[in-house]
């Protein structure tokens, strides 16, 4: 078996697959959660760990991954988030999802970079 310098079609970090994973996890974990300042640090950390572990299980071999979670209180304030990446557009990709309920909003961005 040769050492491939490019991921095969099945192994690519597919934006749509990743987005579905994130969406399912957010729906499950945040369904009835209220914004409580003391609990938020723990929640954001555990969410990012859970999502990262879930993505590892998906089997994206040879991909380095970064998952970023932002949770904020819903108070009508304006929030804007942007990201730019310097990578190999052929092999690398990202996915994001937003979850909102009455008391909080949550944005998750997951990035995958192929390790040659």
């Amino acid at each position: 078996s040769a050492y491939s310098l490019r991921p095969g079609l099945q192994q690519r970090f597919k934006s749509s697959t990743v987005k579905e994973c994130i969406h399912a996890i957010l729906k499950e974990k945040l369904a009835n959660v209220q914004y409580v300042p003391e609990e938020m640090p723990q929640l954001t950390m555990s969410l990012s760990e859970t999502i990262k572990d879930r993505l590892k299980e998906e089997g994206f071999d040879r991909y380095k991954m970064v998952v970023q979670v932002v949770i904020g209180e819903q108070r009508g304030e304006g929030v804007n988030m942007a990201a730019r990446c310097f990578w190999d557009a052929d092999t690398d990709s990202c996915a994001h999802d937003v979850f909102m309920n009455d008391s909080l909003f949550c944005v998750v961005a997951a990035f995958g970079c192929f390790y040659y």
Partner: protein
Amino acid sequence: MGLNVVLRAVGKKRFGRRAALCGVEDSASSSRTSFVVDEVSSIIKEAIESAIGGNAYQHSKVNQWTTSVVEQTLSQLTKLGKPFKYIVTCVIMQKNGAGLHTASSCFWDNSSDGTCTVRWENKTMYCIVSAFGLAI
């Protein structure tokens, strides 16, 4: 003020270090190929200052600001000429008494990859910029 920011990177060594082509690696060459947090942090601060330095939060301009902070940071990082892939994210939030938390989790090689996060604020808004560098 209800702002709490938490950032944690969890690294996991996935692949063995590539064998160095020659057996010697001096400290000068390693700083040319490693993620230097202070350097990246000052690049980010400069980008934030120049994009939103003296401004008050304006809903119509926020989009433009986040984009310009991120693009400027990224272009300065790539000018460093190191063998890294970069990911830069920026969150700008109006000061309204609401809380914001961010966390990130990474699956990478702890010895070569790194991250840097800068929190900045003025009277009307908060800005959080994270830069991740993944070695090739």
